[in-house]
C-alpha cells in the first residue's frame, strides 16, 4: 500500500496505537515469550510482566489488583457480566442504546427466563437516574448502563446512578469503553460493582480489555480451562497486549487535562469553520457530551454518501452502525432518541483524537463544504 496521508476522524471507533506502546509491545514479543504459567525463569518473567501491569492499572483506577480481570476487550467483559451474574428468575435493567455486546444478548437472556427492562434515553441522549429507579423490581439483580454513548458522545450520570443503587442489593455495571482515557475514572469513589474497558479506544492495542469486578462478587467464568486469571478466564495470557494496555492507560491519565483542552480547541475550531462556511448543521446530544465525539446532522445531506465522498479524499468519519458486510444502516441510536429517520440519515459521527492537528480540521471542514455543495438535496 502506498503511504498516502490520511485524515482520521474516527477515534471513537478505534485509536491508533501510541508509538511508545508499540515499542514496548515489540520488545516484549521479541524477548519475553515464555508461558506465564511455566515454572522456569522465562515463564516467571512473563508472569511478572502481567502482574506488574495489573498492579499499575489497579493503582491508576484506585482499586485492588485482585479486582482487575484481563479479557479480550469490551465485548467479552460485557458478556461475562451478563452471562455470569444473571440466573433464571432474575430481573435485569439496561438501556436501549447500549453496545451490541449488551443489547443483542437480551433475547438470549429472556430465553433463559431472565426478565429484562429496557430504558430509552431522553431526547438529549441521557439515561437519567430516576428512569433506572422506576424500573426496579423485587427480583432486580443487575443494572447495566453505558458510561458514554458511542454514537452521541453523551455522558450518563454513572456516579449518581451508582449512589442511588447503593444498599439496594442490586449489582451495577457500566460499559465504560467509550469513556476510558477521556475522563477521570476513580473506582474508589465510584459506587459501582463492575466496569468494562477496552484498550483500543485509548491508544492501546486491540484484543485486550479489562473487567473490573468488585471484591466479593461471585461471577461464573465464560471460558473455563486452565486456571489463568484466578480461574476466571482460561487461556494463555496476551502478555504484550496487557503491558501495552497498562502503558496506554498511564499515558492517557497523565495527559488528561492537556488532551482534553487540545481536543476541545480543535472541536471549537471545526464548528467555527462550519459556521463560517455557511453549513446548515446541528450537534446532537449537546447538553452533556464529552469532547472529541461530535454527532452532527447536516440537513438534506445523505450521511452515507458524505462518508464515502470524504473517504475518497482519505478522510475517515463514521455513519450508522456498521455490520459485517461493511454496509451501514440508519444510526439506530438516533432513532432511540426520537430523531426522525430522515434526519438520522443525514447524521454522521466525527470523532477527534489527539493525533489530529488544526490543518487536518481545516481540510475536513473545507472538504465537507465542497461535498455538501455538490450532494445536498
Amino acid at each position, binding site marked *: 500500500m502506498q503511504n498516502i496521508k490520511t485524515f482520521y476522524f474516527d477515534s471513537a471507533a478505534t485509536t491508533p496505537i501510541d508509538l511508545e506502546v508499540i515499542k514496548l509491545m515489540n520488545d516484549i514479543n521479541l524477548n519475553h515469550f515464555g508461558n506465564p504459567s511455566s515454572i522456569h525463569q522465562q515463564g516467571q518473567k512473563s508472569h511478572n510482566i502481567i502482574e506488574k501491569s495489573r498492579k499499575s492499572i489497579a493503582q491508576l483506577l484506585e482499586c485492588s489488583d485482585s479486582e482487575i480481570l484481563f479479557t479480550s476487550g469490551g465485548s467479552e467483559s460485557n458478556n461475562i457480566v451478563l452471562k455470569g451474574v444473571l440466573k433464571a428468575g432474575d430481573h435485569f435493567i439496561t438501556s436501549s442504546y447500549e453496545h451490541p455486546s449488551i443489547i443483542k444478548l437480551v433475547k438470549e437472556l429472556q430465553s433463559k427466563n431472565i426478565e429484562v427492562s429496557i430504558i430509552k434515553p431522553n431526547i438529549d441522549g441521557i439515561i437519567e437516574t430516576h428512569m433506572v429507579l422506576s424500573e426496579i423490581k423485587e427480583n432486580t439483580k443487575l443494572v447495566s448502563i453505558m458510561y458514554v454513548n458511542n454514537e452521541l458522545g453523551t455522558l450518563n450520570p454513572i456516579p449518581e446512578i451508582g449512589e442511588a443503587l447503593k444498599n439496594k442489593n442490586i449489582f451495577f455495571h457500566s460499559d465504560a469503553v467509550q469513556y476510558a482515557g477521556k475522563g477521570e475514572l476513580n473506582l474508589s469513589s465510584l459506587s459501582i460493582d463492575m466496569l468494562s474497558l477496552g484498550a483500543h479506544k485509548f491508544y492501546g492495542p486491540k484484543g485486550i480489555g479489562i473487567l473490573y469486578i468488585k471484591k466479593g462478587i461471585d461471577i461464573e467464568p465464560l471460558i473455563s480451562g486452565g486456571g489463568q486469571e484466578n480461574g476466571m478466564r482460561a487461556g494463555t495470557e496476551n502478555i504484550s497486549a496487557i503491558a501495552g494496555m497498562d502503558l496506554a492507560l498511564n499515558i492517557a491519565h497523565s495527559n488528561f487535562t492537556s488532551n482534553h483542552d487540545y481536543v476541545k480547541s480543535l472541536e471549537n475550531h471545526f464548528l467555527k469553520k462550519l459556521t463560517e462556511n455557511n453549513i446548515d448543521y446541528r450537534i446532537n446530544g449537546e447538553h452533556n457530551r464529552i469532547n472529541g465525539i461530535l454527532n452532527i446532522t447536516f440537513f438534506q445531506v*445523505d450521511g*452515507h*454518501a458524505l462518508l*464515502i*465522498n470524504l*473517504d*475518497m479524499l482519505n478522510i475517515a468519519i463514521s455513519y450508522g452502525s456498521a455490520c*459485517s*458486510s*461493511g*454496509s*451501514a*444502516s440508519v444510526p439506530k441510536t438516533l432513532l432511540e432518541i426520537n430523531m426522525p429517520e430522515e434526519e438520522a440519515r443525514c447524521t454522521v459521527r466525527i470523532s477527534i483524537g489527539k493525533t489530529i492537528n488544526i490543518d487536518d480540521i481545516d481540510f475536513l471542514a473545507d472538504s465537507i463544504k465542497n461535498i455538501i455543495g*455538490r*450532494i445536498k438535496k
Partner: protein
Amino acid sequence: MKEKVLVAMSGGVDSSVTLLKIIEMGYEAIGVTMKLWEYSAVGGNNLQDNNCCAVSSINNAKLICEKMGVPHYTIDFTESFKDKVVDNFVNEYLKGRTPNPCVRCNSFIIWDTFIEQADLLGAKYIATGHYAKIKKNKNDYAIEKGVDSKKDQAYVLWGIPKETLQRTILPLGDLTKEEVRNIAREHKLETAETPESMEICFIADNNYKRFINEYAKDKTNKIQDGKTLNEKGEVIGSNDGYINYTIGQRKGIGLTNPDPLYVKKIDANTNTITVSEKKSLFKSKCRVSKINWLIDNPTFPLNLDCQIRYNGYISRASINSINQDYIVSFKEPQLAITPGQSIVFYDNNQLLGGGIIELINEA
C-alpha cells in the same frame, strides 16, 4: 482528471474482470457492492459459495478492489429490494403467475439507484458485468446481445431506463465466459474460479416453493389442495395447490394419461390447474403489459424477433398497438406462453425493448 466509474461488484469473476477492464480503459474506478438481501431472514441455513449478498462474496469484492487499488463500498438496498423485487416475486406466484425477479431488479433497482449513487459520488458512468453490449450510433445508445450466446444477458436488461444507456459501460459484451475466466486467471484474481451465480439470487437453496411458503406463511397456509381440471373444465384429479405449479410443467401433476399432460392454465381464484396434452399449449398470440422501449418512436405494426423466456429460442413475430394495448402475433405458435414472464424484442442483435406477458383469449 480521469472520469470516475462506479463498478457494480458482486464478488464473482464477472464483476472482477469488469473492474479490471474499466481500469484498463483509463477510468478511475470505485467498487460498489449493493447489499440487496439478508439470507438469514428467510432460509439462511442453505448458504452456498455463490450467494452474492453473503459476507464471503462481499469480502471477495473488497479483496479484488484492494488488489487493484480501488476503494470499495457496500451500500444497503435491502429495503427497496424487498419492496420492489421480493414482495412482487411472492405476490406474482400467489396470483398464479411466474415472475422474473432479475428483470425487475435491473429495471427498478440496479440502474436507477446506481445512477443516483454515481451522482452522489461524482461518477460519470456506471459499469456492470452483464454479458451485453452498449452501442453508440451518433447520439443514440442501444443495447446489443453479448457475443457469448450461452451467457447473453440482454434479455434481463429490457426494462432499464433508456436515458441511462449513455452513462452505462458493459465491458464484458465482447467476451465469452471462458475468456473472462482466463483473464481472471492471468491476473491471478482470487475470484477466477467462483461458481456461476444461481438462478434467483435471494433464494439461497434455489427452492422457490420453500421460499414462498416461508416468506408468506400466513398466505400460503390458507392455500389448500386444489382441483385439477381437463380442458372441458371437468375435475380429473387433485393437486397440492396452484402455488406449486407453473405453466408448461409436466412433472408432479400426479395423473396418468397415454400422452403426457402439461399445466396449461393456473387459476388462483378457484385454486385449480388445467392440464392438457402438449399440442394444446401452443398459442400464437399474447398481450404485453408494462412495455419499455429502448428505441425512439417505434411504429406499428412492427416486425421483430421475440424471446419469451430466458435462454429460450428466438421467434419471429409482429407487435401491434391497439387502443394502448400491445398485442404480439407469433409467426409460429409458441409453447407455454407464461403470464408474468418477460417477452423481449430484438432486431437481430439489438435489444428493442420488452414487456410482461399477459394472457389473451384465443379463439
